């Protein structure tokens, strides 16, 4: 009985450790989006010039209609957004937030919504390119097993 309890305890510890590793080691793709967006009947125009720093990394500059991507690791990170004037010289507004994606994978941050001090600035990430139809020619670097290949008749 004691041995059984020890085994169950070891299993529980390993499971907890696994969840912990998943939580602290997860990489999140963060899309920075500076496009005009419609939300609740209101239009939020793209910012003329914005500088974004994520998790203390080098800042990224975004112009209207720009979208950039970066990766951060860990359950939380800090976001610093500097809304600049149209010449990119003076900072008009600085916004600092702490984001906690936790177990979630990717996210998209809307700069116009963030600049408008709205709480719904975290958007679902854009979906990837559509899959090619089944009868498309497959790329050569993929494994193709000719299951229905006819045997040589010669």
């Amino acid at each position, binding site marked *: 009985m004691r041995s059984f309890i020890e085994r169950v305890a070891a299993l529980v510890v*390993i499971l907890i450790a696994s969840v912990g*590793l998943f939580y602290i080691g997860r*990489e999140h793709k963060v899309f920075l989006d500076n496009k005009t967006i419609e939300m609740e009947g209101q239009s939020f125009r793209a910012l003329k010039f914005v500088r974004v720093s994520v998790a203390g990394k080098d800042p990224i500059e975004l112009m209207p209609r720009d979208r950039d991507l970066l990766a951060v*690791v860990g359950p939380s990170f800090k976001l610093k957004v500097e809304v600049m004037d149209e010449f990119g010289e003076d900072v008009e507004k600085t916004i600092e937030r702490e984001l906690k994606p936790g177990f979630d994978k990717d996210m998209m941050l809307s700069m116009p919504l963030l600049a408008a001090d709205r709480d719904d600035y975290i958007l679902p990430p854009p979906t990837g390119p559509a899959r090619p139809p089944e009868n498309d020619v497959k790329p050569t670097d993929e494994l193709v097993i000719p299951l229905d290949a006819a045997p040589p008749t010669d």
Partner: protein
Amino acid sequence: MTQAKRTFAQKLSGFFANNAVPIIFIVISALAIPISGFSATYLIQELLIRIGRNSFLILSLLIPIMAGMGLNFGMVLGAMAGQIGLIFVCDWSIVGIPGIVLAMIIGTPIAVLLGLLCGVVLNRAKGQEMVTSYILGFFINGLYQLVVLYFMGWFIPITDTSLVLSRGYGIRNAISLMNIRTILDRLLPLRVGPFDIGSFHLGYIDIPVATYLVIAAFCLFVVWFRKTKLGQDMRAIGQDRAVSDSAGIPVDRTRVIAIVISTVLACFGQIIYLQNMGTLNTYNSHDQAGMFSIAALLIGGASVTRAGIGNVFLGVILFHLMFIVAPMAGKNLMGQAQIGEFFRVFVSYGIIAVALVLHAWKRHNAIMNARRSLRGAPDKKEAAL
């Protein structure tokens, strides 16, 4: 005096006979190094990287040899388990050291199950463990391909579309491990040099300290394990199964444990190997793991029945020295690097064949000597004296 001379000559010939493979490799490497034209700095750096990359895999072979089960060709089962762990870690985007540890945690239960299966099968094929485990590797490879090529992305959810074939299920041929590449090697980096010893110059050399600490821990584990009750049981079984059984040692159970430990360690070894390489060839990476590890161990002077930590490190140094210098030496000698590459592959497989033939020959001789001694006749060596 004559007797003493004979004894010395016998000792010398015995030394050469027992260490023929490492001596041949040392001679070949000594000839190939100057022809290759590589600098000492480059060779040492490459060797340090390759020792860190491969030692863990080769060390995983020691325990089954201790239990008298020969060279565990079934270690590819553990390698496959490690690769499945890495596929999940890539899919979930777990990076860095947590990614490596999580891959090990995912791979462990799979490796335990595969090791149990391997152990049970090998218990039914006593005396033929090597060929059985080799064929079992092919069988499990088929199952692995079924799971990875058809179930993943369909039955087993894979969310990262970059890992999945364009048809919607099955994992791609090659997976980039950039997020965990050399992460263990870079955990505790140490740069030494440059050194100037007379006219001999040695540049900067990077030492992957963390990887070496993991390998050292494994070596300590092997040393400690040999002294435990289980380790002693394994050694006894390796010496004589029938006597061990009579002494009350659970032979079958102990053999299964030896294979399970080896498979789990091979799983960890494959993860360490692949994090250093930075690319996972989904359908090929595990194929060569067993063959090259066994070749390296044999080149280090080990045999089917006897292997130690020293054989592992000597083997990995000699085998990989050959890997590094042979293509360039072949190119400089013949004008084609492929010649050296062919030579290296020929040597790798040839050395396994030679070791197996030597093992069969020694075993045959031992049986014949035992028969002679039962008849009361002196054995061959004594008769020669």
